[in-house]
């Protein structure tokens, strides 16, 4: 059996807006597919098409060989028949029911004792012990999110759909819960589709990415590949790509993390919560360049990376240099500085950047 969700569907709105969704989601085991794009790009609509909350106007959605939607054959499976977990942006907990009843809402088919056991299990799994009798209005934002997640997981769905699950939370809670979420989903071996417009969130949680712009899929596939090699400038603009590379965390000491990226070692400020792997994000304007061979004059910058200039591209008053430092590194310098140093393609240089300018995103 083909263990993929295959989406090849269109949704048209009166007034001309069309959402075209063409991508695949693996359904065998844990993986997070991120639907990524600016607001208005149609991410939420795509998620609703998958959930069966919107009808497909053309094309089809198939899951593991089963037709969920097929416009040509007039097939439309309701959300009830898709065995999904769906978590909307504002959680939509039933306000008239307790946490306990919310968690058990979808378990009507089970006998009372089995339902109770499953509900207890979920309270445990999501760290909600002691809150069973509360109403949603009496919970904090993070607790509400966990209840909604537990409710979506209760029926052991084959696919979990999350629509911007962290937007309703404050920043520190977001960071903590992202990590917990990824651990949880991995533990449950649950394939997940997550909608977000937040690049950090996409990198933190995603294995695969589907980049959407103006209702159209621009690129989909492995997340590292999308950041490495955006298929077109639109994708690069949406992803905000400068340098995003995956590295291995070698150690953390006194607030400074050491990350191995290819043969290079990069020092970066410790964002907290680092595991084994992390994405290293560097903005082009934070990278300075000097010719190799110049004696270091003493600097606060922690990172001095030898490399060569692969391409040199003028962008107005600035010049974009692509360096090979054992990994591709983008940097942006003034045209003036570039001329003063007489830089050309192929030159050996040293890239200099402060540890504080290196942004690490944990990704295990």
């Amino acid at each position, binding site marked *: 059996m083909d263990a993929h969700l295959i989406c090849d569907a269109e949704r048209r709105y009166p007034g001309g807006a069309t959402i075209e969704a063409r991508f695949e989601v693996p359904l065998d085991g844990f993986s997070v597919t991120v639907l990524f794009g600016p607001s208005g790009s149609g991410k939420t609509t795509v998620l609703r098409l998958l959930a069966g909350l919107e009808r497909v106007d053309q094309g089809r959605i198939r899951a593991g060989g089963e037709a969920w939607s097929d416009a040509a054959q007039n097939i439309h499976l*309701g*959300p*009830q028949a898709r065995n999904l977990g*769906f978590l909307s942006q504002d959680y939509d907990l039933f306000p008239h029911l307790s946490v306990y009843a919310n968690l058990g809402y979808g378990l*009507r088919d089970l006998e009372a004792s089995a339902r109770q056991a499953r509900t207890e299990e979920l309270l445990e799994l999501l760290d909600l012990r002691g809150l069973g009798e509360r109403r949603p209005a009496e919970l904090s934002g993070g607790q509400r999110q966990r209840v909604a997640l537990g409710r979506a997981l209760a029926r052991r769905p084959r696919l979990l759909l999350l629509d911007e699950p962290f937007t309703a939370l404050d920043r520190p809670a977001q960071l903590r819960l992202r990590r917990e979420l990824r651990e949880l989903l991995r533990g449950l071996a649950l394939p997940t589709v997550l909608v977000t417009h937040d690049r950090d969130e996409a990198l933190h949680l995603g294995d695969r990415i589907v980049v959407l712009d103006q209702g159209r899929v621009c690129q989909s596939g492995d997340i590292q590949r999308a950041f490495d090699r955006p298929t077109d400038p639109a994708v690069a603009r949406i992803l905000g790509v400068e340098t995003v590379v995956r590295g291995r965390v070698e150690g953390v000491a006194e607030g400074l993390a050491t990350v191995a990226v290819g043969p290079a070692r990069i020092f970066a400020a410790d964002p907290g919560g680092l595991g084994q792997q992390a994405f290293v994000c560097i903005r082009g304007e934070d990278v300075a360049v000097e010719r190799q061979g110049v004696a270091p004059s003493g600097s606060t910058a922690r990172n001095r990376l030898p490399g060569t200039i692969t391409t040199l591209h003028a962008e107005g008053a600035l010049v974009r240099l692509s360096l090979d430092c054992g990994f591709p590194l983008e940097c942006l310098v003034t045209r003036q500085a570039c001329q003063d140093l007489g830089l050309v393609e192929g030159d050996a240089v040293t890239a200099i950047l402060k540890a504080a300018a290196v942004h690490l995103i944990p990704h295990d």
Partner: protein
Amino acid sequence: MDWQAVRLSVQLASLTTLVLLGLALPLAYWLAFTQRRWKFLVEAVVAMPLVLPPTVLGFYLLMALGPRSPLGWLWERAFGHTLPFSFEGLLLASVLYSLPFMVQPLASAFAGVERGLIEASWCLGESRFRTFVRVIVPLSWGGILTGLVLSFAHTLGEFGVVLMVGGNLPGRTRTVSIAIYDQVQAMDYGPAARTAALLLGVSFLVLTLTYALRRSQRKPWTLI
């Protein structure tokens, strides 16, 4: 005071409210959620009794229920008496006359339930009907209460339609409002005043109770 009329009125109002609830639940659900373009037509028909003079409604009902109409003929064949000037005829007339007072609060309450909650229920495997029972109805209790109270109070106070369809038969179609009219016609002001005071008191009481129960709801009071 004409206690027979009071009892009859309460009986009529209770039964009307009950029948209306059964009718209005599906009708209001349809009005709240349908995507049909001609929904406005149904809305207009349901709202008719709000603006129509009771005599006009009563006149048409009389025509529709009379022994020469198909319904009236069937009824007479089945039950041996005519619909007009009977309690059953009065009940039917009351149901139609109070229809908007039940349907409108229900429909607006149903439509006010957040879409996301309904969709969440669907995604948890519950059918549209089960979602109605488990989510929409419990979250619409304020509107349902309003509909019950308004229908009851409105039926209790109806006059024109009763006079047209029911006439004035003691114990069968003579309701409180008719009794008051009779008493005033007979210059019998004492009993008329007492009956009127009773109606005033009951109406005030049920409305006060409704407001009190709904006072914690976020939405400001709207009649319908």
